[in-house]
C-alpha cells in the first residue's frame, strides 16, 4: 500500500517570487570565469617561481 501523500493541501496564495533562472545561470558563469582567470595566472606564477 502506498503512503498517502498529502496532495490536497489548501492552495495558499504564495507571494510570487520572480523567476530568475537566467540570472542564476549568468552569475554562475560569471563566478566561473573569475575563478578560471585567477587560476590561469596563478599557474603562470607557479611556473615562473
Amino acid at each position, binding site marked *: 500500500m502506498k503512503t498517502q501523500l498529502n496532495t490536497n493541501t489548501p492552495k495558499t496564495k504564495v*507571494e*510570487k*517570487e*520572480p*523567476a*530568475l*533562472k*537566467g*540570472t542564476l*545561470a*549568468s*552569475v554562475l558563469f*560569471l*563566478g566561473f*570565469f*573569475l575563478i*578560471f*582567470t*585567477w587560476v590561469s*595566472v*596563478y599557474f*603562470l*606564477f607557479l611556473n*615562473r617561481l
Partner: protein
Amino acid sequence: MMNGTWKVDARDGKLAMAHIYVAFVALALGGLAGLLQVLVRSGKFELPAGISYYTILTTHGVLLGLVLTTFFIIGFQFAAVSRTAGTLSDRVRFWGWVGFWLMTIGTAITAFYILIGEASVLYTFYAPLQAHAGFYIGLTLVVVGSWVSGFAMFAHYAKWKKAHPGQVSPLLTFMSVVNMVLWLVCSLGVAATVLFQLIPWSLGYVDRINVLVSRTLFWYFGHPLVYFWLLPAYMIWYAIIPKIIGGKMFSDSLARMSFILFLIFSIPVGFHHQLVEPGIDPAWKYLQVVLTFMVVIPSLMTAFSMFATFEMYGRSKGATGLFGWLRKLPWNDARFFAPFIGMLFFIPAGAGGLVNASHQLNQVVHNTIWVTGHFHLTLATTVVLTFFGAAYWLIPHLTGRVMTKAMNRLAIIQTIVWSIGMIFMSSAMHFAGLLGAPRRSAFSTYGDAPQALEWIPYQIAQAVGGTILFIGIILVLIIVTNLAFFAPKGETEFPVAEVAEQAERTPLVFENWKLWIGIAVVLILIAYTVPFIDMIQNAPPGSKGFKLW
C-alpha cells in the same frame, strides 16, 4: 516622491553642459595623444620635433583619467540632483559655477605646464619625479573646485531632507551624495601630499621629499578615485537603464546598500597598488588586500541586480527559456546598447582586477602593460561607454533637442567600433604584459633582447586596436556635437526608473551618514595609522627632485 521636476531647469542644464563640454574637449585631445602612443609603441613611428613620449603620455593620462572623468561626473551629478531633488537654488548654482571655473582654470594651468614640457611626470606625479610647481598648483585648483561643487550638492541634498522629514531621498540624489562623500574623504590624501610635500619641494622651499609617504598618500586617493569614476556608471545602470528598457528597478535598497559598501571598502585599500613597495610591512599589505576583496561583494550584488532587472523585464514581455529574455532587450537603442556593452566588458575587467589585487599574481603583472589593458577595460570601456550612453539622452535633454534615428544608428556603430578596437588593444596589452612588457615606456627592443622581441607583434596589434579606437572617438565627437548644436529641437526624457512592486521598502538607515562615514574613518585609521607612523619614523633620507625628460 512625485515632487521632483521632470525636466532639469534650463539654468541647471547650462551648468551641467558647461562641464560636459570640457569633458568632451578633453576626450578629443586625450584621444589624439592615445593614438600617438600606440603608434610610437608599434616601433614604426617616431614623434616629430623632439616631442617626448612622456609628455604625450602625461597629457593622455591627465586629460582622460582626471579631467574627462571629473568634469563629466560633476556635470552629470548636478543634472541628476536637479532632476530628482528639484531645481537648484540660486546659491547652490552659484557655487556650482565657482567650482566649475576653479576646475577649468586649474585644468588650463596644469595643461599649460604639461604641454610646454615642464611636467612630464605622468598623471600619478610620483615623487621623486619633479614637475614645475604650476602643474601641482593647477591640480590643486581642480581638486578645490570639485570640493566646492561637492558641498553645493550636499547643501542641495540637505535642503531636500529638511523639506521632507523622515522620507527616503531620491535614489540618484542619494547616490550622488555618496560619490561626493567618497571623493571628499579620499582627495584629502592627494591634497595633503600636494600641499605639504610636492608644492614646497617643487618651489625649492625644501630640498628633499619622503617618497614613500607621498606615494602612500597618492594611493590612499588613487584607489577610491577609480570608484569615483565607477559609481556614476552604476547610478546609470541601477537607476536609469531599467527605465530606458521599459522595466523596473530590481531593488532600491540593494542599490543603496551596494553604494554604502563601496564607500566603506574602497578607501582603506590603497596598498594593493603598492604591493611591491619596500618599506611597508607585509602584514599591512595583507590586511588591505583582504579589505580590497570585500569590494567583490557589492560588485557581485550589482552584477546580480542588473541580470535580474533584465530577466524580469524580458519575462514580463513573455520571454521563455533560460536566456530568452536577452532577446527582448532594446538592442537598437543606443542609450541601452552602449552601457550594456560596457557592462559586458566589466566581466573580464573584474577578473583582471582580482589578479591585480592578489599579492603573488600582482608580481606577475606589476607595472606591465597588462595593467594598462585592465583599466582600458574598466575606465576606458565600461565607464566611458556608459557615459557615452548617458550623453545620448542627457545632452539633448539639457539642450532641448532630440536624437535623430541616424544619430542613434551612428551611436550603435560607435559602440561596435569601440568594442572591436578595445578587444584588439586591451587583449594585446594583457598578453604582452604577461610576457613582461612594461607599461609607461616608449618603444625599445632593449638591445634586441629576445624577450623584448616577443612583444612586438602584440604592440602592432595594440596599434591596430588603438587606431580603431581613435575612429570611435571621432564618431562620438560627431554625435555629441550634433546633439549639442545641430539636432532638431524637441523634448527628450531624462529617464529615472521606478522600483519593482515586489521590492521591499527602503529603510532610512542608509542615510545615517554619521554611522557610515564613522565606519569608513575607523577602517581607514585601522588600515593606515601604524604603517604611516612607521614610514615617517623609519624614513630614509628624502630624495631630491628628478627631471628625467
